[in-house]
């Protein structure tokens, strides 16, 4: 197993300020997070890639009923961001002005430190 195609590599990348994923050498699909088998064509010829971290909001919600782990994040906006390279990923959207978020809005990756861990998060760009 390529160590760069694991969940640990992905979360280590987030903590280090990088969004990583995989690129299929057979069908050229790109995906995030990394995985060993291409979800599009089934090829196992997958290479690790690093994304630029820029993208646009594809869907979002202001979560008013978060789990206890996220009570301290106000407002808690979560969404799906389509990265410039093509694939989409779930992330927090950090903002003081949730009313100003729009689908199609440009955002960039900006991990949020939470204790030992880093949460995949974006800010307006």
């Amino acid at each position, binding site marked *: 197993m390529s160590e760069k195609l694991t969940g640990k590599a992905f979360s280590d990348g987030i903590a280090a300020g990088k969004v990583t994923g995989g690129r299929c050498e057979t069908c050229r699909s790109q995906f995030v997070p990394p995985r060993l088998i291409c979800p599009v064509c089934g090829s196992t010829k997958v290479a690790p890639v690093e994304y630029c971290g820029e993208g646009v909001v594809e869907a979002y919600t*202001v*979560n008013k009923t978060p*789990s*206890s782990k996220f009570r301290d994040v106000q407002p808690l906006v979560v969404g799906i961001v389509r990265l410039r390279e093509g*694939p989409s990923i779930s992330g927090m959207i950090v903002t003081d002005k949730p009313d100003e978020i729009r689908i199609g809005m440009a955002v960039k990756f900006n991990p949020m430190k939470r204790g030992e861990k880093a*949460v*995949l*998060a974006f800010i307006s760009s």
Partner: protein
Amino acid sequence: MTRFHNKVHADKTGREIFVEAALEAATSVDKGFAFRDAGMLVLGNFTSDVFEGQGHTAALMADWLGINPVPALRVEDACASSGAALNVGVLAIASGMTDVAIVGGVEKMSQLNTEGVTDALALAADNVYEIPVGFTFPSIYAAIASAYLHKYNARWEELAAVTIKNHVNGALNPKAHFQADIMATAKRIGEKQGRTFTNEMDFLNSEFNPVVSSPLRLFDCCPVSDGAAVAVLAADDVAKRYTDTPIHIAGIGQASDTIALHSRPDITTLSATVKAAGDAYRMAGVKPRDVRVADVHDCFTIAEVLATEDLGFFPRGTGGKAAEEGRTSLKGEVSINPDGGLKAKGHPVGATGAAMAYEMFKQLRGEADAVQVDGAEVGLIHNVGAAGATVVVQVMRR
């Protein structure tokens, strides 16, 4: 099936709720049925492990029905568990392994508080890449709603039309969790709070319908309920032993999709619904326009809108409008969720698919009383696991 409710089963365990549903199923069989007639038990159950601290629930139910050593199998496909169990029962009979199977579902959820239930349901989402960024189950469907409303320039009021319609139906269903339409609910709350509401939307736009996860509000979400439902399946040539008016499972389908919403090319459709329904329609030899009545998986209002489009009843982007125009009501061209749906009937997750089969059995036999849909010859049931990572469809006919 038992009533679906958050209080009436408070003092019972999951097994007792299941036995209650099974006893009703057995005693309702026209020519009589003994549990020991069954050669297999298939149970849909999502996570009694978390809700009740009880695993190994299929063998447990077989034990409590007194049918050991009949093989008992638990199916876990999140909220689609008993829809999937129904398909497994069909396959068991089709294989020739048995002629008669007991298929059911159960979930006892109410002993956990809302937060505990939210955490338990989150197990059905991607617990590595979705939940850790702040998603919850309602917020995943809320993200779908945001994309849908944006793509089709649709209005939240179209979603609210689903709420209003399903509560109208639920008010007529003695098994439903909520047996009050929105105006009756508004009146009850208004009397307590010294407020009057002029119509349903006046209430649904008020602070008594708070945002859960934008754009979804409280009345866009199904409640937390306890309950169970049980069906008896028999091979075609054996069914006449039990009844002269069996309901046929004419087509089945099941499909999977990515667990995480973000991995899908388009989140304004559940592609697993399209696939599962296509397979079920083909097997049954029917088209969407042949379906007069359907129970679809409306865990959130947006889910019913997507379902009515993905099942082929309405073009994309028009499902909400169709609900608003009454085209999915009891008298509409295709009656959706005559039993009140998950929204008003309740959603004990593992029991929902079996409860849909219960409703469709009654509809197609013309025994659905106050919610009977005229001309119900072909019906469809549609059970979704999580945000469409599992979808199960059955087409049923008289």
